């Protein structure tokens, strides 16, 4: 079967709406329900976060959700167990996102096999660098029809971006900002330059912008420059164990997609 990520980007070129959530948060067994509700409300692609004790590339919201998820008892084993039958009810692409160590302890081979069995389409493992991936794991990922999504940032050199584009298969994850502005420039101007620069490079892979996308304005803006955008922290913050998941998810998605 053709990878669902490629199917999605062939079918839809603009406004791809992608959401990240941390598995095991707010409650241990919310995983399947959250995925189903996101699809039902029109989300195109989901990143399922594997919680890690030391999420060094994440801000406070995802740190907190990861901590709670681990306290709730989430593990990679349990996550695979929860997702075992997900393809009976969900057809949009699913990506697992997390840090390398839990995957390494699970065994990269086993991990890729389980992903394939379940119908996971890709991974985002920020601390698995490109050279290690290519030297050690690329063929295992390919055998299991799994895309390893790579990141670029405002600091990534043109040469490196070309290299990452060459090595990418599903899409490129554009990290929107580093929180630092260029000399004398405002954040927005700096970001606009970066987005335009990448757009003008005409990469062969589609791209999706993530980090700092939090509402319909930032979502719409990101979609001007890339094929879509990923919302993480803002979605995670909207999930509260005292609210009904169905209601808060549909409300959240509507707000992002509303055109005002």
């Amino acid at each position: 079967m053709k990878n669902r990520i490629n199917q999605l980007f062939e079918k839809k070129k603009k406004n791809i709406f992608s959401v990240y959530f941390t598995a095991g948060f707010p409650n241990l067994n919310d995983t399947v329900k959250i995925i189903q509700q996101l699809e039902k409300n029109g989300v195109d692609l989901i990143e399922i976060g594997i919680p890690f004790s030391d999420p060094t590339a994440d801000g406070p919201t995802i740190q907190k959700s990861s901590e709670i998820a681990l306290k709730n008892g989430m593990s990679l084993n349990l996550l695979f167990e929860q997702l075992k039958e997900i393809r009976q009810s969900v057809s949009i692409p699913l990506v697992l996102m997390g840090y390398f160590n839990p995957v390494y302890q699970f065994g990269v081979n086993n991990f890729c096999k389980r992903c394939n069995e379940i119908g996971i389409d890709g991974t985002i493992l920020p601390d698995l660098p490109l050279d290690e991936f290519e030297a050690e794991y690329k063929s295992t990922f390919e055998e299991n029809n799994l895309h390893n999504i790579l990141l670029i940032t405002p600091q990534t050199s043109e040469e490196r971006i070309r290299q990452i584009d060459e090595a990418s298969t599903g899409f490129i994850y554009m990290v929107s900002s580093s929180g630092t502005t260029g000399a004398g420039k405002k954040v927005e101007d700096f970001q606009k330059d970066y987005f335009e620069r990448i757009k003008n490079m005409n990469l062969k892979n589609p791209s999706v912008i993530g980090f700092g996308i939090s509402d319909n304005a930032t979502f719409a803006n990101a979609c001007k420059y890339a094929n879509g955008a990923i919302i993480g922290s803002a979605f995670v913050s909207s999930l509260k164990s005292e609210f009904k998941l169905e209601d808060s998810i549909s409300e959240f998605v509507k707000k992002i997609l509303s055109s005002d």
Partner: protein
Amino acid sequence: MKYQVNEKGYYGEFGGAWIPEMMYTNIDELKRRYLEIIESDDFRNEFNQLLKDYVGRPSPLYFARRLSEHYGSKIYLKREDLNHTGSHKLNNTIGQILLAQKLGKTRIIAETGAGQHGVATATVCALKGIKCVVYMGALDVSRQAPNVKKMKMLGAEVIPVYSGNKTLKDATNEAMRDWIANPVDTHYIIGSVVGPHPYPDMVARFQSVISAEMKKQLLEQTGSELPTRVLACVGGGSNAAGAFYHFLDEEKVELIGVEAAGKGIHTTETAATLTVGSPGVLHSSKTMLMQNDDGQITEPYSISAGLDYPGIGPLHAHLHKTGRAKFLAATDEEVLQSVLLLTQKEGIIPALESAHALAALEKIEMKPDDVNVVNLSGSGNKDMETYLNYFGY
């Protein structure tokens, strides 16, 4: 050269640069430039000058007569406690601040456990007039209060970290997040031989002055530049890396690293990574880690804030694996006894961290003519409150 890092940043199977793409540009620049910079005449002249006139090097190699009598073997102490700011940490921060200047960086960040690396970083930032931010676990902020005040007086901003166990690992996470958010103007001065390549090698090189001096001093004092064995405590492993460095290829010199056993290696309250750990990836390095079956890092424990870390530098993981160095662990209790012994036999109050190396003297066999060099990595000034509470003076 068997124990040197290879061009990919590995010591055997350990090391590498397991960095998120957000750190790539900075790490790549460091990797490409660190050797060229630190081997330049310009850099070496200023580094050596500062080590001599500012740090106060060479640090003495002191023959501890009464301690030697006590153990029935010759014991020498490498007095890193006499360095400016009271530990070996300044050797590294002097090197890294000069490097940061060459790279055109205008803001420095650091993590700290015991506060010694934080103080050493704040010190060189004051020396060079560069802005300094230090991340410190909230628990360490309270157990190492004098160092927090020193850092502030030196002009650094100290940011307490409330995640995890609120210790060194958590401070390191937060420093990495800061660097990811501030990639252009900031240099991250890592305090030990941990983190992504080239940090472990770079920090080891800056600390290698310790064993370079030992060789000269041993030759003068004993007639041979090689001792029987060298002992050092190991948190991340920088003072041990410095004390071992020039002896690594001298296979007949026994190298002994001492980790913090905390309440004991068979309890969950320990920081003896090599004894209880397994290979994994943390803080951008593949090394030995304390973790559970699911790959989550477990919280370490030690009375000594500077050793309270669930990982270890990849060099030491390799020395352990190859058997080139032996690693022991000392409990809180054993360490406190060694603090008192050194204090009352020699009139030297050691840091809690350094006393782990002293505690190993109880655990090894020593012959009367053996030359044992203990790297006394720091002074006990910062630990006085702990000592007073424990010993009840």
